[in-house]
């Protein structure tokens, strides 16, 4: 285990982390996901040794890190604002960590120049950092962090200040860094897209509480509670009880709705059901429904553009959301007030057991 938090609680002014336990394995690209102000950066800074926990233990390589200062942890940290030193040029920024390690001038020059070359920024070697573009600053910050060969790289929302094109390029850079160099990376973000693209494991933190920690696939398929599901962008969330099961075919009663799903859970299990809006098709009421599909009748109450798609809100006793292309909206002749049927396959329904334990964040 590379990084481990054991029941870490930490108070910083008005803000607090509560009883956080998490594990980052060697080679993980570990994401800490959460809304702004959830305490993600504090977790990162606690790993780096910039905050000491009030209680609990932070372990690195199985070793208790209490009283080990940041400079002795062999961890590099890149902040969202890059935090380049404005009184040093690019070369001296990147060389900073090597100077602290008292490397020889010759070695510093060779290593720094190699690193700048690797990231394709040799041409800005002697530039003042304040004159650099966002993408260049990001690369310099990464060079500075990597040149000291850290065991862990901590990234605090590294892509949030970038334009979409640079962001896509940089996701590629980070992906290569993880895949090719096998570096253990912990990244903090509120972007689901980045997490989906890069993460191997995810921890979801909300209001200072760890809500869920699992593989990326598990977290996105089975959010532990509706709050996490909503944060992860699941549009349709139902709460119900599994009432009938034959093989993997299950029926779940959620209020007045009877929903077909695939599950191996026993009958009587209380569950949350998550259905992505992209998995929901919307058909005119008159159209024939394929047998075996869930079909819920309702009235369209809202149409909103959602990127290249349209987000349709349907009142079916409970609100239902679907994402359709402009062509689909046009061909089904959907407008506000149209009577429609929302359809989705049983395998589009993700069932998660509703635990009887209260949600961590409700303990506040």
């Amino acid at each position, binding site marked *: 285990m590379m990084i481990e938090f054991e029941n870490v609680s930490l108070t910083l*002014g008005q803000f607090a982390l509560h009883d956080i336990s998490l594990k980052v394995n060697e080679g993980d690209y570990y994401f800490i996901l959460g809304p702004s102000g959830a305490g993600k950066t504090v977790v990162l*800074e606690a790993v*780096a*040794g*910039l905050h000491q926990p009030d209680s609990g233990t932070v372990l690195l390589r199985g070793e208790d890190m209490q009283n080990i*200062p*940041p*400079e002795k*942890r062999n*961890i*590099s*940290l*890149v*902040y969202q*604002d890059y*935090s380049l*030193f*404005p*009184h040093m040029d690019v070369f001296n920024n990147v060389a*900073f*960590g090597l100077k*602290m*390690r008292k490397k020889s001038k010759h070695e510093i020059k060779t290593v720094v120049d190699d690193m700048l070359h690797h990231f394709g920024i040799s041409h800005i070697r002697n530039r*003042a950092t*304040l004159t650099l573009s966002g993408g260049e600053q990001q690369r310099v910050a990464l060079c*500075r*962090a990597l040149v*000291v060969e850290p065991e862990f790289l*901590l990234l605090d929302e590294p892509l949030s200040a970038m334009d979409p094109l640079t962001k896509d390029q940089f996701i590629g850079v980070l992906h290569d860094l993880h895949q090719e160099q096998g570096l253990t990376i912990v990244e903090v973000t509120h972007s689901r897209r980045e997490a989906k693209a890069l993460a191997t494991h995810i921890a979801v933190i909300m209001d200072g509480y760890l809500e869920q920690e699992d593989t990326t696939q598990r977290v996105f398929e089975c959010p532990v509670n509706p709050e996490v599901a909503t944060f992860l962008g699941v549009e349709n969330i139902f709460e119900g009880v599994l009432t009938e099961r034959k093989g993997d075919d299950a029926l779940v009663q959620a209020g007045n709705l009877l929903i077909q799903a695939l599950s191996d859970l026993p009958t009587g299990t209380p569950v949350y059901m998550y259905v992505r809006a992209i998995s929901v098709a919307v058909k005119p009421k008159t159209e024939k429904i394929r047998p075996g599909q869930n079909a819920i009748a309702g009235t369209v109450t809202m149409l909103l553009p959602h990127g290249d798609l349209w987000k349709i809100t349907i009142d079916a006793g409970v609100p239902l959301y679907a994402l359709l292309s402009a062509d689909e909206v046009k061909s089904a002749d959907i407008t506000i007030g149209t009577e429609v049927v929302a359809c989705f396959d049983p395998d589009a329904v993700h069932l998660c057991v509703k635990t009887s334990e209260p949600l961590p964040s409700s303990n506040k």
Partner: protein
Amino acid sequence: MKFPTHSRLPDACIISFALIGCLILLLTVLALFNMALAQVSDIGYFIATATDSKVVGAILLTMAAGLNAVLILMVVGIPLAYILARFEFRGKGLVESIVDLPVMLPHTVAGIMVYLLFMRRGIIGGPLWDMGIVFEDAYLGIVVAMLFVSSPYFINAVRDGFEKVPVHMENVARTLGATRFQAFKMVVLPLSVRHIFNGSILAWGRGIGEFAAIIMIAYYPMVISTLIYYKFTLEGLKASTATAFTIVLFCFIAFAILRYLMKFVGRYDDRV
């Protein structure tokens, strides 16, 4: 395509603010003009006074003592400013009030406080007197009086500078292998150099302008303000005004040069 030419006149609000602001400038300019007029009308007397060894000696003594106070402030004030800028702790408000106290005190009170501490029988002055270090009527007395009254200006200016350096930069330096002191020395200090310079100018200016606190502990050797007072009471208005105008000219030139130099000091810290 032609764009309409905009009027170059600032709006009414700016004009009225500038006019109101001029009143305070006018007061200083009028006082200077009044003083200068008298000196120009008898330029021979003014030159004789300005080159008098007593006057030159007092000016040099004042400047040197002020500089000395600033150098001591740099050693003791910078660490305190850093603590106040970076840490929250119980009793911080009290510490801040103690730092600011010399600003609010009447200067005579500051003088008494300094005198009580550093006089021959004072808590600090007593033991040092035994070791041969004298504050009463001595150069060191002038330095401590200046140090006491100018410390808030220095500490608060430097603290502002430290606060402007993002803590993230310090954090990054730490993770890259710098100890807290190295991060302070290599990141925080260079990025605050402009504020330190500014604080030093303020403190120096405040120190050389001090009179009441200094005469309590060290009437002699005479700093320039003591000499002007001495001349005013014993030799009259003409003698004291000529001396006063000498120091006005000296300060004006010295501070103009320092302000000019400040343009070239640590310019990046504005954009931190």
